[in-house]
């Protein structure tokens, strides 16, 4: 690490307050509320018309209606989440369907390398398959025991807790399997291609 530049007069909050250091990535601070950030208006999605699809480099695309999606095996998840705007929230409680459960219902092409998460409202984000399998990611539809509200991405959002939260695409509509990890929406607008909070991969060009 380069030499520390100390800010005159700054001591910061008492260190004892807050959670164990090993749960707060560098440059992040703890919050207790759940801030809302998105690039446009909040889409309101009719559950009768909602669907989730896995397509792209799979043998046959699979599509679920809301009822079919709710019939998939669900799990409870308790996860720490970090937003690139520097807030970190501990022990967020979700219910949802793991991406493993979705991906085992399609047959991946050998070239499959990454996913494009595509959303109602037009948002996209890119993820390596190696970042979403083996219990690392899920489609969440309940938060804190209640249906996920629209401003937090309801009826259902992708949740990839070990990456900055812009990767956890709200209002998820489709997961497109692709053979190349191409930048999505924020990744094309100055943000890092992968976004690992522990490596502080905030912006394009960060290590």
């Amino acid at each position, binding site marked *: 690490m380069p030499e520390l530049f100390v800010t005159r007069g*700054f001591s910061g909050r008492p260190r004892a307050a807050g959670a164990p250091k090993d749960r707060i990535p560098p440059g992040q601070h703890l919050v207790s509320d759940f801030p809302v950030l998105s690039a446009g208006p909040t889409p309101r999605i009719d559950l009768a018309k909602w669907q989730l699809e896995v397509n792209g480099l799979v043998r046959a695309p699979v599509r679920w209606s809301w009822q079919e999606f709710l019939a998939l095996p669900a799990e409870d998840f308790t996860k720490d989440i970090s937003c690139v705007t520097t807030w970190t929230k501990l022990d967020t409680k979700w219910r949802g369907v793991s991406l493993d459960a979705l991906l085992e219902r399609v047959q991946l092409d050998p070239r499959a390398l990454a996913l494009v998460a595509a959303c109602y409202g037009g948002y996209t984000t890119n993820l390596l398959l190696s970042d979403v399998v083996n219990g690392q990611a899920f489609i969440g539809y309940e938060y804190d025991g209640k249906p996920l509200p629209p401003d937090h991405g309801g009826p259902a959002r992708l949740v990839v807790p070990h990456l900055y939260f812009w990767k956890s695409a709200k209002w998820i509509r489709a997961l497109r399997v692709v053979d190349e990890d191409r930048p999505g929406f924020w990744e094309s607008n100055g943000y890092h291609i992968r976004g690992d909070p522990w490596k502080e991969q905030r912006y394009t060009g960060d290590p």
Partner: protein
Amino acid sequence: MSALVWQIGTVREIRPETAKVKSFTFSLPEWMRHRAGQHYDLRLTAPDGYRAQRSYSIASAPERESAIDLTIERVEDGEVSTFLHETVIVGDRVELRGPIGGYFVWDATQRGPLLLIAGGSGVVPMMSMLRHRAAARSGVPARLLVSSRTIDDVIYRAELDQLASRRDGLEVFHTLTRAQPAGWTGYARRIDDAMLAEVARPSAKDALAFVCGPTAFVETAATGLERAGFAATRIKTERFGPTGT
């Protein structure tokens, strides 16, 4: 794009805008032209290595070289904003990294019209856009609606009056939600569909809308603009919650 590096900015000027809001001018050794609407990250480091970092919108125009203005609201219990308001003086140095963000931006070469809806300190990135518009001598029609609690909470009030008085296609609308001075002729309520429709009316079809403010404000404004005929893809939003210190 190359990586953005942390650089040490020097505080050149501190100007109170309202009781809770100050503008800080930082000179930067490696100033880079920004796009109006972008932000900088600001980082504070304690002697034991503890760090706190926040993002702040740039208030100055890209035409203003070698320095940037950040306008910062003092947030209750805000670790960084409180320090900046209470402890920092002219001549102090802090670490900055930017400019950042490629979406919530406007350039005078883009077609208008421009519709800007700001809640409180959400006006800061809009100010960069309007200063840029003036510096670039752009005639793009623009309307700004600013929601503030009282007349004393209006950030950049005098400069907004001055910009509007140029009669170059900019119109500024205010709403005061808590209290209004005697003889007030602007709006006097929280933003609602009727207000948004009035401000948006001449431009709804082809305007580009930017909305910035607290989460609830942005939700109301973005939804109202959709009902006023704006396509969701023409509404760019930036939100800050109570923790956006």
